[in-house]
């Protein structure tokens, strides 16, 4: 088996209790709770969940933009969890990010050419003239005219700005791209353009992509595998078609059921579960139903393996 591009093992983030809101007892707020995630090479893994599920925090932890409380981050098999900033710099080249809000993430005082070339400068790559050249080449790769190099972010539409964000993330030739809701702020007609661009670049460059999104429709047409988070925990993980056809966790089902259906003839009344009802409805499997022996020999909910690389948080026994 080849080494995965990115691997998270029991990754945990606890935010200290400062105020009273959102904290649980004195222990602070557990935003990410022992998350295991494997991003194979040349694959798109979607991390889905609603606000507060911990999906964005997981992305920030993986990127080392936020310090983990516990667990391990492996980039190409190398442990980067505790590297100091200097040692980390070499690894940052290999893992880049695109955020949701292209307006906030592009410096308004820099030209698009400067924005795209900046990562090359930071890593001391190429001469200034070559960097300018690269920036123009990347503008073209993301579907913008190279003459845009001298323009500023405010002159662009939201979709065009997101193209620039993608160019800046990929100019260093990373192996891993973390895309956190890259299309959520975009218009319907432009969303498809950016998804297609990411899909094409992913295939061309052999990128491994962690695609963080709340939009299951986008995930369905884009991801190889889906990881579902609920209250800081991974509750289900499976190849995309299994998630959409045969979800096993009540939260995944609730999430899928809530997506509006683009067919007025298929309207129906939904049944809604509260978060507490979902939390109380953890599935139960007998040991013989599992593909592999459970890791924990307890009644505590754990991620168990079902047939077809399908994992679900469940209780074993009975």
């Amino acid at each position: 088996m080849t080494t995965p591009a990115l691997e998270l093992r029991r990754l945990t983030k606890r935010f200290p209790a400062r105020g009273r809101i959102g904290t649980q007892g004195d222990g602070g707020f557990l935003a990410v709770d022992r998350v295991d995630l494997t991003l194979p090479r040349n694959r798109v893994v979607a991390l889905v969940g609603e606000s507060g599920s911990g999906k964005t925090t997981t992305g920030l932890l993986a990127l080392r933009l936020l310090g983990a409380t516990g667990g391990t981050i492996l980039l190409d098999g190398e442990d980067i969890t505790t590297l100091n900033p200097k040692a980390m710099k070499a690894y940052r080249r290999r893992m880049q990010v695109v955020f949701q809000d292209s307006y906030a993430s592009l410096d308004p005082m820099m030209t698009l050419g400067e924005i795209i070339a900046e990562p090359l400068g930071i890593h001391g790559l190429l001469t200034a003239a070559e960097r300018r050249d690269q920036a123009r080449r990347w503008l073209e790769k993301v579907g913008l005219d190279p003459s845009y190099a001298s323009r500023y972010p405010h002159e662009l539409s939201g979709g065009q700005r997101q193209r620039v964000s993608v160019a800046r993330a990929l100019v260093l030739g990373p192996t891993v791209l973390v895309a956190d809701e890259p299309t959520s702020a975009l218009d319907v007609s432009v969303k498809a353009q950016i998804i297609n661009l990411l899909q094409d670049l992913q295939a061309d460059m052999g990128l491994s992509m962690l695609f963080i999104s709340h939009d299951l429709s986008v995930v369905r047409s884009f991801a190889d595998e889906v990881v579902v988070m609920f209250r800081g925990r991974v509750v289900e993980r499976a190849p995309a078609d299994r998630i959409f056809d045969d979800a096993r966790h009540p939260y995944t089902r609730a999430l899928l059921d809530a997506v509006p259906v683009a067919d007025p003839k298929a309207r129906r009344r939904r049944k809604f579960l509260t978060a507490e009802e979902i939390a109380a409805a953890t599935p139960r499997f007998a040991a013989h139903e599992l593909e592999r022996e459970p890791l924990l020999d307890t009644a505590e909910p754990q991620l168990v393996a079902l047939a077809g690389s399908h994992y679900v948080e469940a209780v074993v026994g009975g």
Partner: protein
Amino acid sequence: MRLVEIEDLHVSFAQHEGLVQAVRGVSFSLDAGESLGIVGESGSGKSVTCSALLRLLREPPAKITAATLKLAGEDVLGARNRTISNLRGRIAAMVFQDPMTSLDPVFTIGHQIAETIRAHQKISKKDAFDRAVDLLRRVEIKNPASIARYYPHQLSGGMLQRAMIAMALSCAPKVLIADEPTTALDVTIQAQILQLIKDIQAETGMGLVMITHDLGVVAETVDRVVVMYGGRVMETGPVEAIFEAPLHPYTKALLGSMPGQVAGKRRLVEIPGASPNPAHPPSGCPFHPRCPMATLECREIEPRLEEKLAGRSAACIHVPAQQRVPEAVA
């Protein structure tokens, strides 16, 4: 009864760059008990149209003209301020996208709903507060009496949007205008709020105008659809007909670019280019720079919204009007 009548509405804003024409000749109407979805992308003019209907825009810089702009038969354009504030609330109430910015952070939810009631009716503070609690119960908030004493920051986005709907219902309006009411919410909460709006509409028989960019929301909630683009109406018709066989190339493209309609990883159908800049709208049909069917004529002729099939209109010179079958034969 005609609750909303809009004919040839134009709204422009005087800006540094010149005149921004946000709405350019929009017409539609809404009958009692009907639900209408206005779907469009940012800059299509969908929100401005409804804000103009309630005269919520600051004039100037906004300039509103229309052949007809009526709410429940009352002329909105010529109305005095007092008539307008009577129309708002009693005739038409609005729910906005972001409940956090629509509510005052220093007053409790119950106080704010009670205040709305007292603005329209002579009623004691205590009675108004009791009514507020009833309204919160009606939007399916559990423990309405205690939630009424909460401040906005103590509630989740879904709860706040329920409170906003309660406030909108406080004067028993004939029309509810919901401007992207679920865009800021999680998908499971969105489904609950949409269900609530539908239930209340069915119960009260009020008219509903649902403004949204999300075709899925339209498919789930309304009877009739107005598709807007570049400040104009591109197509109108019954929701089932539009989803089954859209007439206008823009509607077709929009439906085609929706992700996730079929299983499996695939490239999506994209609409090239970007939405028009309302400060410099393209000549002719606003969609022509992005339209696969565009011809030279589209650049020059501004297509009129015409009935192409019974009950269905489109603003496109390439959509043929079907010969009407005489009723005696049909």
